[in-house]
């Protein structure tokens, strides 16, 4: 078996608990429409992933933009934590969905070469019981490609940069619970206790 030896990725800018990764790809001639559809599928897959799994990936948001008259593609992300130490983690978690849109870029040729050397694309069919193992083996190739097209932002801002996703999820859970409390007719009296003053101050709206 042959395995790729890889080097570390580049590094985007960090802001608070998040960091950015922006990559720029060359679109294969004639593939613009297929690429557009693939990027929409990619977004749909992410939308369907339970929040818990997305916390696992660390991905906060992502977008694909086709530009230069359909010749180039930007894939930009916001990631919780630093990209650099988590690069392999993220790619490993979401690898099978990368291939769908990446195959329409010129940079995919290196991956496809590696895919072939690993037994061919049929090995990556969902029907193959060993598909997970084969998918994992493309990490090295993908990592190299993403790193090669990464360009750090020159400026970066994120409004929720002080909160991690688990904290945001918990804040949502707390808000729902607090509203349930306020809906109870006994809430006003209950919130008069001095220990609950901070909550009472939030109860007016």
């Amino acid at each position, binding site marked *: 078996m042959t395995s790729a030896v890889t080097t570390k990725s580049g590094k985007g800018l960090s802001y608070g608990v998040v960091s950015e990764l922006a990559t720029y790809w060359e679109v294969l001639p004639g593939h613009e429409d297929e690429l557009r559809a693939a990027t929409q599928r990619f977004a749909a897959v992410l939308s369907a992933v339970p929040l818990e799994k997305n916390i696992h990936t660390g991905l906060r948001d992502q977008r694909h933009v086709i530009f230069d008259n359909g010749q180039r593609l930007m894939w930009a992300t916001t990631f919780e934590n630093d990209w650099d*130490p988590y690069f392999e983690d993220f790619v490993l978690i979401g690898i099978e969905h990368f291939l769908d849109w990446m195959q329409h870029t010129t940079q995919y040729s290196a991956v496809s070469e590696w895919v072939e050397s690993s037994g061919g694309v049929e090995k990556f069919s969902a029907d193959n019981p060993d598909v997970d193992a084969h998918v994992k083996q493309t*990490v*090295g190739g993908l990592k190299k490609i993403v790193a090669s097209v990464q360009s750090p932002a020159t400026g970066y801002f994120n409004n929720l940069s002080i909160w991690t996703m688990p904290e945001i999820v918990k804040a949502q859970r707390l808000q729902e619970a607090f509203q349930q409390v306020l809906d109870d007719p006994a809430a006003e009296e209950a919130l008069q206790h001095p220990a609950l003053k901070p909550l009472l101050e939030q109860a007016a709206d």
Partner: protein
Amino acid sequence: MTTETDTSLELDDIQAAALMPRPNPYAGAYLALRIDDRHAGRELIGRLIPLLEPVSSFDPDRPVSLGVGLSFAGLEAIGVPAESLATFPSEFQQGMAARAAYLGDVGESAPENWEKPLGSKDVHLVVAALARDTSLMENLVRLAQDAVRNRSGITPIWTLDVHVPPDGREQFGFKDSISEPAVEGTGILGSNPHEAPLKAGEFVLGYQDETGDVAPVPQPEVLGRNGTYVAFRKLHQRVAAFREYLGQNAADDAEQEWLAAKFVGRWPSGAPLALAADKDDPELGADPARNNAFMYGDDPRGLKCPVGAHARRMNARDAVITGQVRLHRMIRRGTNYGPSLPPGVLDDDGADRGLMFAFVGAHLARQFEFVQQQWVNDGKFIGAPAERDPLIGVQDGGEFTIPRRPIRRRLRGLPDFVVNRGGEYCFMPGLRALRWLADLDT
């Protein structure tokens, strides 16, 4: 660049001390040597090789264990060619002291405060010698010392005696060295039956790892293949400060034990909070078939074991965190040094006591350095950016949350309970590589 890999491990070439659990009970020593003359250094390695066992012939009942590693400065000192030295990863080339800011070795743990000569370019060759008891250890250390004795050009520059404490627990009072990963292809059984064996390339150079890749192997192949990296750290434990903090934050002895268990993630007996949430279970703690057989998936909020507890940070198992746990697993070896602080004593007696920690793995950056930076000295991966490892993290007055019904407990103003007194990155070559080093003619 691609590398042809063979999936069968060359167990007859891998140093047993790299992969096999240490003897228990144990007594032993860490020795650091400076190589002033490359020819003497090569001769020394030649003398040490017959004392080393490969994994293939390792007998778990054998009462002694010896391991040998070289720092980057040591590889230079022994005359490894520059083109070969350049193939080692940059973090290893720099050494642990140069990586201090990244590792969180700041303040009292900063290299300028390390015990001399740790962190200097004089630490070239490190020998770890462990035996089941003191008399065997003395014989073993004598063997190692005989290999060094009267060798002009070789200077012993540092030594640290280690021993199992009388109660078998580390200095804070907890049973340790419970968690052992299974390594594919070695036959080494992991301590958690719920964790699949890890790819050998996580721990040995030249084999496929958990990413499907092969880590860059130092060249030539004979030097790098079947080797691994070791990061050792002399961690001073502030036992009196630990007890004092617990006393200040607990009403009685039982609550102190409860607080300490929440810090650690296990009770003093070794029983995991995940399986014994409310009180210690010494029978469970003493049972190697059960004391690490658990996951955290049924405890997402940390009501049994806090999500920020030391043991849960070191191996989050199936808990939801940012990232993949299996990419950052480590073989961890802890050996106790210094006298125990007698039970009940709250005043620091000034003695140096703690844990000689050793990491073993094929990826210094992705394993040891990642864990130090992301899991020990940060909390974003568990959604708690203000918190660090309550036991070994750099606190700076930090906080620690203990989930509990009806209301969580939050501790503030945590001091540092552990100070790094120094350490180094070493390369632990395979046995053929050691022979190659001994036969160098540069």
